[in-house]
């Protein structure tokens, strides 16, 4: 198991956003998290990626305990993520955004910068190559010099993917990667996710787009009010009455029409 979560809990004041969740993510697979708005999905991601400190519970990554590590330390271990509202470095170009993504794999410091040491030059070259590589991977090579404010929603999503990939991750957590993207482009993004998996990257994603999830996911976890209410293959989830009730839409209501 690549990621093992045990009894993970997070409270905000009086609200329990994530409530003792046990969960595992298998290497090389696509794992999805679904659930109603406010169910605690994003919070779950925030806990794993070190953005919030859990109130209790533990997170293991590749048999290291990362529960109390900081976000940047977790990123260095190979965990990348994207945000629900696409989060990019607004005032830069696509290339600059992605370029900085590789910074955590470089070690040049002030000294290198001032004296332009060979290490700096090498690492700058590396970062640039990496940036071009991931931009090509997500299909944005031609937009490299565009300002992020000039590109479309879907292109932003791709840039966010590229940024995550530039950190050389083992696993990426994608928070609603296809939100606000039309169906055709959604398919494109799904293809991209598949491509990532085939490259050996483990993917865990949150999505409300059921068709996409059902096609992509190997395993789905359903959260409701911070609690895990179901877990299983897409087929199992589709049929799960609790999930239909809480999320997919109560059959009772539909029939009553």
């Amino acid at each position, binding site marked *: 198991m690549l990621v093992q979560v045990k009894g993970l809990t997070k409270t905000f004041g009086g609200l329990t956003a994530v409530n003792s969740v046990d969960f595992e993510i298998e290497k090389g697979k696509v794992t999805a998290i679904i659930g109603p708005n406010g169910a605690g999905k994003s919070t779950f991601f925030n806990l794993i*990626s070190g*953005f919030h400190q859990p109130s209790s519970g533990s997170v293991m990554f590749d048999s290291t305990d990362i529960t109390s590590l*900081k*976000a*940047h330390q977790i*990123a*260095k271990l190979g965990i*990348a*993520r994207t*945000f629900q509202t696409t*989060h*990019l*470095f*607004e*005032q*830069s170009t696509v290339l*600059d955004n992605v*370029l*900085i*993504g590789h*910074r*955590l794999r*470089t070690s*040049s*410091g*002030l000294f*290198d*910068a*001032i004296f*332009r040491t060979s290490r*700096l030059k090498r*690492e*700058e070259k590396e*970062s640039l190559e990496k940036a071009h590589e991931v931009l090509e991977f997500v299909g944005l090579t031609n937009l490299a010099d565009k300002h992020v404010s000039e590109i479309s929603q879907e292109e932003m999503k791709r840039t966010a993917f590229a*940024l*995550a990939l*530039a*950190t050389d991750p083992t696993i990426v957590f994608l928070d609603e990667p296809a939100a606000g993207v039309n169906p055709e482009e959604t398919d494109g993004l799904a293809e991209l996710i598949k491509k990532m998996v085939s490259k050996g990257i483990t993917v865990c994603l949150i999505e409300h787009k059921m068709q996409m999830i059902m096609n992509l996911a190997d395993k789905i976890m359903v959260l409701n009010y911070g609690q895990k209410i179901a877990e299983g293959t897409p087929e199992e989830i589709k049929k799960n009455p609790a999930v239909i009730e809480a999320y997919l839409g109560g059959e009772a209501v539909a029939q009553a029409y």
Partner: protein
Amino acid sequence: MMSFLNKRNTVILLVVVAILVPLLTDNPYLLHIFSTAFIWTIGVYGLNLIGGFTGQLSLAHAGFFAIGAYSVGILTVKVGLNFWLALLLGIIITTIIGLLIGIIALRTKEHFFAIYTLCVGYIIYLIIYKWEALTEGVRGLIGIPPPAPIGPITFQTPKSQYYLLLFFLVLTIFIFTRIINSLIGRTYMAIRNSEELAQTIGIETMKQKLVSFVLSTFFAGLAGGLYASFVRFIGPDISYINVTFDMLMYLLVGGIGTLSGPLVGTLLVVWISQYLQFLQDYRMLIFGPILVLLIIFYPRGIVGGVQTWLIKQRAKKSQKDLSRNLQSVVVKEEK
């Protein structure tokens, strides 16, 4: 590539002009104004690094400037050290204090950071003002020696001091440019852009902000040390908040977060305020509103404004080219 060459040529040209100035004129006043402007520019680059590129507005920089100046002053006057040694120690002292303050101050964010550093600046002022045994209090430190000669080179005359300060200015700009154009500079800008995102891509933002802050106090301390030996007298006033405000004004007029903003802004404002001397106490009646208007209409100062204008021009030109091309296409088709 063309523009890069142009930029490099401009820089070389500027440096050559700066070197020629003292040869063309004997006016010590002119040299004096340039020299002081150079000193401030160095300090303003420090402010630009942390405020403009890393996005943390520090209002304590007059304080760090003063720490540099007083360290050099005290070490030369009271301890009797050689100027160069004192300058080195002064910078070290400034950066150590900067480090200690930064560790605490950078835990706060945005407005809190600005006000926190404002208060830190004021504390530095109060300490300089009250600690008479060390700083001579309100009287100030007198008799600070000019930079000690290096071998045959002495720094007694306005010209030689001008060259010395020019050297440090060019060095500052060089270091600054190197930093900004490297991975480090990109890291700082990433933090300015979004600290949160920077963290998720594995950047240790606290450490990076701290390095940037310390480096910015380094420039402030260097400027302060040079100031002490240039003016050769220092009083607590140089650590007062108004001096930070002045530096901020230089930075804003030039363009915050731009490479050449500190240079352009400082030279310009220092000269303008010389020309506006006849207004005396009413200078601020003009400066105040100018500052406000500038912020509203040219938030990135002169350099930023020019950059935007150039981009627009280029866009216009390319659009014109495009429409011309289109026209020619149309014309062809009509034929």
